């Protein structure tokens, strides 16, 4: 090795040695997925629990409509109109029954308020007015109160900003350290409530609540994780095993009320139906193959009343939302197509009283 080697020789050696090192590794089993409840505490329990809670926020559908809203007359046929609440089908965002220009990947909504992301561009809006969120902290998710009146998000500069969605003005900023994601003690934004504006964080061994009016910060009285807020209360996770509705006061006292079904796929309607996907099948292009529900199981909370809705043959639900009491809209994806494109997604609508779903778009 006394002579200096040529760079090309070094490069070839590097390729060979790195391949050999990597190829000789015995890859350990993948640690518990953030989507699974850990069997026992281990060193990943904190970040995993936080991440699991976050995906529950991502995956959960909560009360889209005010609990006290009047009952919508049930149709005798399945309406063919475009979505009447903010909703994404494929990459198309529908607001006020019309599509919005651009391609949208993800959206959240409560009443007319929505949060959506275009590539590298988070936005929110009320109706068709679009506002950007340029100071949103990287890798964080804004939250909207269940009445759509308040939006909260983690700022790049630190802390949590709370906005009024009716005026766009800042209601307050909670100067709280959320921590970086490497930290097992990181706190993350989980929910905001309204009209009593309280911001909830999850992380560490439980959660924290900040009251906008009083400016007070308290630790929650329970180590159950607050996941998201609904008009019926905040959904708390019990280590990902049980889920409760509960209320919370400014002092951080949590009062659990109703036990709700496992929430990872569940959704609560304005009239207390929980919704869960079942009969999962593979769909989507090979590199993004996904398991999607072909059946929706509905359970009336506090009762044994159940309804099963089968999606039209050949279709799966990549996402869903309550459009009105007794009415569900679905981002439908065709099954069994290895080369399916987002343009092939279709709007599917289900009417609970009819126990039927139909493809209504495109």
């Amino acid at each position, binding site marked *: *090795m006394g002579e*200096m080697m040529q*760079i090309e020789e*070094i*490069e070839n*050696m*590097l*390729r060979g*040695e*790195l391949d050999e*090192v*990597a190829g*000789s*590794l015995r*890859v*350990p*089993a*993948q*640690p518990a*997925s953030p*989507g*699974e409840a850990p069997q026992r505490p281990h060193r*990943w329990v904190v970040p*995993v629990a936080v991440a699991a809670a976050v*995906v529950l*926020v*991502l995956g*959960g*559908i*909560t009360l889209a409509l005010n609990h006290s809203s009047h009952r919508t007359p049930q149709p005798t046929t399945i309406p063919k109109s475009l979505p009447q609440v903010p*909703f*994404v089908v494929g990459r198309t965002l529908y607001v006020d029954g019309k599509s919005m220009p651009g391609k949208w*990947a*993800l959206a*959240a*909504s*409560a009443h007319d308020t929505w949060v959506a*992301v275009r*590539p590298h561009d988070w936005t929110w809006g009320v109706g068709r007015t679009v506002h950007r969120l340029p100071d949103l902290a990287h*890798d964080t998710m804004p939250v*909207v*109160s269940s009445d759509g009146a308040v939006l909260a998000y983690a700022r790049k500069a630190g802390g949590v900003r709370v906005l009024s969605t009716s005026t766009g003005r800042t209601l307050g900023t909670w100067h709280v350290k959320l921590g970086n*994601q*490497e930290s*097992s003690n990181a706190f*993350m934004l989980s*929910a905001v409530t309204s009209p009593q504006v309280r911001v909830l964080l999850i992380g560490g061994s439980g959660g924290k609540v900040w009251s906008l009016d009083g400016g007070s910060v308290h630790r929650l009285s329970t180590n159950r994780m607050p996941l*998201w*807020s609904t008009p019926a209360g905040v959904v708390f996770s019990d280590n990902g095993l049980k889920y409760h509705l509960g209320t919370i006061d400014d002092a951080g006292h949590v009062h659990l009320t109703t036990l709700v079904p496992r929430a990872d*796929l569940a959704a609560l309607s304005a009239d207390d139906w929980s919704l869960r996907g079942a009969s*999962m099948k593979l769909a989507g292009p090979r*590199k993004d193959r*996904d*398991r*999607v529900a072909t059946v929706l199981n509905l359970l009336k909370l506090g009762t044994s009343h159940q309804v099963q809705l089968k999606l039209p043959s050949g279709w799966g*639900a*990549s*996402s869903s*939302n309550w459009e009105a009491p007794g009415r569900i809209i679905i*981002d439908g994806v065709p099954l069994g197509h290895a080369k399916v494109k987002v343009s092939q997604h279709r709007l599917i609508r289900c009417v609970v009283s009819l126990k039927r779903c139909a493809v209504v778009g495109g």
Partner: protein
Amino acid sequence: MTIMQSTTSTTSAYEEYAAAAWPNLYRVAYLLSGAHADAEDLAQQALVKVFRNWGRVSASDSPDAYVRRILTNTYLSSRRPLRLQREVITDRLPDTVVEPGTAAREQRLLLWPHVQALPPRQRAVVVLRYYEDLSEQQIADTLGCSTGTVKSNAHKALNTLRASLSESPADGKEA
């Protein structure tokens, strides 16, 4: 709040992706960190971040590139050894098994010990260039820097490795 996208399938889609991505993620993490325990921590940290941002990851043009960026930046942002940051008392025995012969095999390699001694950013460039076979532009995108910085880091790394080899005892490799 109502989340519309990723409702009925977020978790399963993530799990499927993570299961498929885990082996390569672990291998790259090992090449970056040089230790099994750190590699496992690093890969798992990256997956937790992927999980937290699954909507964004799955919607990106190249989820693999997005995940690679997360993994590399997690590695670069760890100023202390990951093991030290993560250590907690546990009643569990280590569950990472080192394949017999791995250490001996690595000792026979000429460059690998010197790769492990490179500064983190140079090492990342080396792994991305010569293991992942990325272009300079792709590496720049992954690291969030210019192609000029990639070239500079690669140049320094290769020169360091070449100098290290010229200083190595000739009989040290074939034992």
